[in-house]
């Protein structure tokens, strides 16, 4: 047996242990949470608008992302902007998952989750803060939201605020549409926006 054979034999003698590894990863997430070093916890849930990435800090939900955005890219951006101490840790997202499931079942019209707003600032943050004032099942134009936000001329900036909403679905930028009644853009794609508005219309 030469050294390469021995390397192969060693690799075989110490195989991967996928089940055990997955238990260890769960245990790591729990320990990290307990020691206060889990800066961002995330999970991916299924929804009628495709897989949704939910991410939370200890302050609250910080990001909801559609598959269209690329979940890996979103996690990298969280690593860059918030902290690279990021683990898949579904426990912290239990409440968010429950409320979002209820929303998609048509049983929840407003969200009561704690939110971490640090990915949004300035006028964009102001705009997003006003969006919950558009009630479930209703829509408002970009101009109307500009008015609500105290800057009637900032219609384009309202569009940008909606397009960069870090918490879509939960912060209802999907209820902002064009003045002519057409839907306008959406972070999750036009199909997702249509699905959300149709759902709300039916369940309102």
């Amino acid at each position, binding site marked *: *047996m030469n*050294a390469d*054979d*021995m*390397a192969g*034999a*060693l*690799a*075989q*003698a*110490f*195989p*991967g*242990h*996928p089940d*055990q*590894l997955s238990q*260890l*990863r769960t*245990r*790591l997430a729990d*320990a*990290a949470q307990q*020691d206060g*070093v*889990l800066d*961002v916890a*995330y999970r991916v849930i299924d929804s009628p608008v495709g897989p949704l990435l939910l991410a939370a800090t200890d302050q609250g939900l910080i990001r909801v992302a559609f598959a269209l955005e690329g979940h890996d890219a979103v*996690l*990298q951006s*969280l*690593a*860059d902007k918030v*902290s*690279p*101490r*990021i*683990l*898949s840790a579904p426990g912290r997202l239990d409440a968010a998952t429950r409320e979002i499931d209820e929303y998609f079942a048509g049983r929840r019209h407003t969200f009561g989750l704690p939110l971490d707003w640090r990915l949004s600032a300035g006028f964009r943050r102001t705009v997003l803060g006003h969006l919950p004032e558009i009630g479930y099942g209703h829509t408002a134009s970009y101009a109307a939201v500009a008015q609500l936000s105290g800057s009637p001329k900032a219609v384009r900036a309202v569009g940008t605020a909606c397009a960069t909403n870090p918490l879509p679905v939960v912060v209802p930028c999907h209820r902002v549409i064009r003045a002519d009644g057409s839907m306008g853009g959406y972070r999750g794609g036009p199909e997702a926006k249509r699905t959300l508005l149709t759902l709300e219309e039916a369940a309102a």
Partner: protein
Amino acid sequence: MTGKPPFESVVSAHGSTVLRVCRAILGPADADDAWSETFLSALKAYPDLPAGANVEAWLVTIAHRKAIDVTRAAARRAIPVAETPETPSTVSGAPGSQAPDRPAGGGLVADDDLADALTRLPAKQKQAVAYHYLAGLPYADVAAILGGTAEAARRAAADGIARLRRSYPGAGAGRAAPPRTPGRATGRPAAPRTASKGASP
């Protein structure tokens, strides 16, 4: 600007290798604790890891220290035994590392035999073999972990491999060579592997 990847992808990329290294150094019973301590400690320090650092070498370095801690803690708990380690060492010779009821020979347990044989090597040899052959670190990195020169690390690994060949007579070694049955190349026995020492947690 893109900085460090999320720690989750570090665990995905290196979790399995670090577990194999922990099993090689400590045996299966203590490997879980060492793995957990390693990754929790790595997570804490991760934001301060210099960009461009060799993440696998960094993790193996932490695992090396954690394995020493785990072994020391186990030694404090253990009942003293007459058997002494082959070399005075902080890592090798954990009590109970001999499996008295291990069947002699037999192809199906050959991998467990080799795993046991590695776990019983003198510390430096075992570490050099594990870090080079299982983790794939170059000898310069192994030397940085163990202290000493890359040449010394290479020698320790070579000595370890030579000793493994003696305690695990592989192909061409003559006596009691385990037959390489067709199944061995691709699959493993379906029966659960039994821990060779201690009680599993």
